[in-house]
């Protein structure tokens, strides 16, 4: 008897649910935070994922210079940052978003969650401005996404070095490649975008980029939520074996073309990780800092100014393991950092407009492709 009653209650309750209540709430009847008034309360709330460069020393220096009190809201990856911006639109809970890249930026702009910052940006390299040059986001670091592989295993004898992406769908690679998901991770999304270009220009006119992903899914590719899980937990060629939770079952991973450089630099000019530079299989990624609509605009702009200052931005390679976005900057030469890093000959050519128009479709197609395996 009790349970029938419970069932009846549930059915009745759900039948009355038509979303009308939420509609009303969102029409501004119950939530009424202002979208245009903001207060400079001396605090800066940063929404980001684990950007290495936002360490205590760097933040304390900012606090010292400007007097703002910084709070860091750390989420999992770029996807969570976008989720946060959209969930909290107009609620004034955070002031600046750091870590959205050029494959995620358009979503943020389209949903009107960003504000024009008033930092003055000078001396930014043309390459960094290529995907986006507007007032809503400032490019603070960049890099090329590409596949890395463990050269101690993938040495041509036990494992063939891939000559094209289809090689990765062979049996020997089954369950041995880790790729972050394009739904949640910015390197993952960047790589997926590259594949849309790669397979348009390959010799095979019959297969699409989605077919490759289906084949990868059949071949048990490891899809992770974020880059760190793929690189640290699964990849055998990087520093992962010295972290807790290391499993080490993947010999290839989607990371940066300069990741081997970082490895070498951290380990005294030695690494076994190598970038796989196939034409159009890499992607130029730029990461942005953007002021959030309704947040403390002055504080956000001050931080952007700080982040883009030569003192801070020139240290991107050493503090944040990414390229700087200022003109004339390069990776340091010490310990083989620059030597082991590659600049790809032919990165994928996907314009910002194309990304803006197609990203939603691409993600849906990717999802279907992976499910169809």
């Amino acid at each position: 008897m009790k349970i029938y009653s419970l069932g009846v209650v549930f059915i009745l309750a759900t039948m009355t649910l038509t979303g009308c209540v939420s509609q009303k709430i969102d029409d501004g009847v119950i939530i009424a935070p202002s979208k245009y008034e903001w207060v400079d309360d001396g605090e800066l709330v940063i929404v980001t994922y684990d950007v290495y460069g936002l360490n205590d020393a760097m933040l304390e220096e900012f606090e010292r210079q400007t007097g703002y009190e910084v709070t860091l809201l750390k989420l999992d990856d770029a996807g969570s940052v976008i989720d946060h911006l959209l969930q909290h639109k107009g609620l004034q809970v955070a002031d600046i978003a750091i870590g959205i890249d050029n494959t995620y930026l358009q979503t943020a702009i389209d949903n009107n969650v960003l504000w024009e910052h008033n930092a003055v940006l000078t001396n930014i390299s043309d390459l960094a401005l290529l995907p986006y040059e507007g007032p809503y986001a400032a490019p603070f670091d960049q890099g090329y996404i590409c596949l890395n592989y463990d050269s101690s295993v993938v040495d041509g004898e036990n494992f063939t070095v891939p000559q094209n992406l289809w090689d990765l769908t062979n049996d020997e690679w089954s369950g041995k490649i880790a790729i972050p998901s394009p739904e949640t991770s910015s390197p993952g999304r960047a790589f997926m975008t590259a594949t849309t270009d790669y397979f348009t220009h390959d010799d095979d006119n019959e297969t699409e980029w989605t077919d490759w992903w289906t084949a990868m899914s059949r071949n048990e590719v490891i899809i992770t939520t974020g880059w760190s899980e793929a690189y640290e937990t699964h990849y055998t060629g990087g520093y992962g074996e010295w972290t807790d939770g290391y499993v080490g079952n993947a010999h290839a991973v989607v990371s940066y073309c300069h990741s081997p450089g970082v490895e070498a630099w951290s380990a005294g000019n030695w690494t076994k990780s190598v970038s796989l530079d196939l034409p159009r299989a890499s992607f130029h990624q730029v990461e942005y800092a953007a002021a959030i609509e309704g947040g403390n605009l002055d504080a956000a702009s001050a931080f952007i100014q700080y982040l883009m200052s030569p003192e801070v931005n020139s240290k991107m390679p050493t503090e944040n393991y990414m390229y700087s976005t200022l003109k004339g900057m390069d990776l340091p030469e010490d310990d083989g950092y620059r030597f082991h890093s590659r600049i790809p000959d032919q990165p994928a050519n996907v314009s910002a407009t194309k990304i803006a128009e197609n990203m939603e479709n691409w993600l849906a197609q990717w999802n279907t492709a992976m499910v169809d395996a």
Partner: protein
Amino acid sequence: MKFRLISSCAVIAYTLLVVVPLWLAIDRLIWVAGFNPLDWINSLDGNYISQGVVAFTFLQALLSTVVTLAIGLPIAWQLGRYKWPLHSLIKATLTMPFVMPSIVAAMGFLHLIGPSGLNIRIDDTTWFATLIIAHAWFNLALVIRFCEPVLSTLDPKLEEQMRLLPAGHSKIGRFRNLWAPLLAPSVAAAACMTFVFSFTSFALVRWITLGDNTLESVMANIGSSAGIPNYMLARNEIILGASLIQFTILIASLWLMSWLQHRRQNLLPQASEITVKRVNHRGWMIVFPAVIFALSPLIAVFWASFRIRHTDSSGTSYSWETSGWEFAFAGSGSMSSAWDALWNSLGYAMITLCIALPLGWALAQTILDIEKERPKTARFLDVLTMIPFAASSVMIGLGVMLGMIRVNAEFFYSFWPTPVIAHVMITTPFVVRIMLPALRSLNPIYDECAQTLGIPAWRRFMLIRLPLLRGSILVAVIFTLAMSLGEFGASWVVTRNSDWTTLPVMIDSLRSIPYNNTYTAPAACAVSSVLMGITLLLFTWAEKFRPARDGGMF
């Protein structure tokens, strides 16, 4: 008159705090995704992120149930049929895992099978096996709590009679004709609850398996993308589909449990005292490993909090240091310190107690009061108080996040006790379930006698009711505190996007810190040890006050 006021206030407060958030959350999800239950269910296997999750959830829950029974029944048999020195201590040790926070268990097992432990954490077979065993670890307590009292209070004459009958000459015969029917309802109840707890597992799945998800963990993972119009519609469908399935499973198990409860009470006659007299030395082969098994993850966690890994070009070594503890308690710009988490957790627990206890009690009293005059209303109220049981922790967390907070986001995000809403939703039904039988067993004649002595209502409450209910109140208090302190699923969903933190959430955050930081894992173990210590304290205290009733869960 004052009476009625308290009752109506209680019902209104409960509805606002507990029922409305869930309702609002579902409303929001339906608003974004549309009302089409078939689509919701199909979306589970139609999306990559949730593909195979339904199958995995059912499979691991079934296997966990089987393994739990396989391990638990021999132990319950030994405990129930024979006398043991330190019987209550052994029983307490074996049932203690049940009250451990899931995140502590996750850390424990992670270290047991990890490189500093048995080092067998290699591939998904080991992960899966560990998950099943971890579930068994948790749910052993259920098998013992349900089955052991039945075994130990059986009237010995029944067994003696059975031995003398043809059907009972052989062990198998006795098993089939006496033990099996006797234990069947208890075993079924334990199996049902084990299935439910394994089905809604989150923390263990998150940490022990890599890449596998249960419905619960998938909902938690995609929760922050949900409820936003025109954004990732599929995720809303997935959450609705997963909720629907979970709700159905939970309702079915509630029904099954109440039916079984009924059957267990009408079974074979039991002696009022424990009738067991024999000792079984060989039984130590089962009981001793069981005790080790129950304690090992906890020892592993404590131990691991002091082991710091050092890696350099020559290899990896470990040293014994307190740096993990220092790291946890120092905090930094980007991570709150364990002191904050401890302070928050204790604060939330106290506030939860101050709301859930009176609320649950008032609801139980109300149900009792109107039972005679208006049994249908009483029934309805009883069912209403069970609604949170049909929602898993993550569903409740989503309820708070998508339902409550959206009502006035600005207020709720700046309101420190907001996570308490989730804790109250989870603990109040338990308070009702604990207080209702206690209040029922309170003979009304005591209150009447006190009335004839001229004692006014508030003095009757303080001098008579309160002392007579003391045991149950204390169990309710301790249970509420323990549940609030150890709560993971709902708290994780609610606190993710903000700077609230609790001990369990902090353990998870510490362990999730990427990059090569040798202190994060020991720090997570340090905080786990703190949480573990507090839970053990509460548990030992509760064992003292537990009313000696037959095989309930509490």
